[in-house]
């Protein structure tokens, strides 16, 4: 996913993608980030305990923690509610 995203949208993408364990490379590829910003985002989410890093066979994988579910749910409801209210676009 690319385009002009806010940090909150990027956090949401990472957390949803990491519902199953993912490597750093897979995350930055999927979320269209460079290594530097990828490290920053993962560092932030790990620091807030929304992500945990596990090392398996020498590879570090990141997975969302239960507290991340609160953020994911709030984010989804905010974005989906945008389509409940008028004015919407129709022909």
């Amino acid at each position, binding site marked *: 996913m690319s385009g002009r995203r806010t940090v*909150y*949208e990027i956090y949401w993408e990472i957390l949803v993608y990491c519902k199953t364990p993912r490597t750093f490379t897979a995350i930055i590829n999927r979320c269209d980030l460079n290594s530097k910003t990828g490290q920053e985002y993962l560092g932030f989410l790990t620091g*807030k305990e929304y992500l945990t890093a596990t090392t398996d066979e020498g590879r570090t994988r990141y997975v969302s923690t239960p507290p991340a579910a609160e953020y994911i749910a709030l984010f989804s409801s905010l974005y*989906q*509610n945008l389509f409940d209210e008028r*004015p*919407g676009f129709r022909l």
Partner: protein
Amino acid sequence: MNNVEKQALIQFKKEIRHFSLVTSTNLIIGAIAIAAGIVYIIAAILGLTAYLVSPELRVIAGAIAMVCFGLGVSVLHVTLGIFRGLRAIKDKIDRDGPAITDDRVTCLIVQMTAYYREIRKKLGTVILVGPLCGFCVFVLGIVTGLEALSLTSSGFSFTLNSQVTLFAQCLTLAIAMLSLFSSYYFTKFAMAWNHRIAEIEASECALKKTLGLDDQ
């Protein structure tokens, strides 16, 4: 998927489909303007425009044809830029089908939001240039159809070429009207999305709070 999610998906799909339709219409308008401009320029080079009332009118028609061509290229180029990204999102919606998950719906909404931020300026250009392009096609149609034009101190009168069918004139008018409608719908789309972007910005406080960033 609960009712709110279902409603969001239905509305989102509908908007993307409608916006895609308006964008396609604008592509056609751009292509027609390019074609009209080129046809007149080629006809002028081949000397097929000698039927026009005066050399001055031929110069004016030539200038309008070139403007028409330029605006057509501009509309086609900018609209194509909008269309490509939109098509990608529309394809994803179609590919996912009815068994779409809640996260996937939000993901597509986020994609469209990010994409709208990217195309916002392009949309502004199309809203302005589109009707101008349609107007040029219409004026070119009128000017090339003129058989006689007289300007007096009390006003002006003109006669349309009898060979130019009413159908052709109606067609250029239809293109002009279509460009106006497409510009109107682009404006409606931009207004709806600007409103949503403003709402997203307003709701960032709640996200900040959840992330524990409200004190920063």
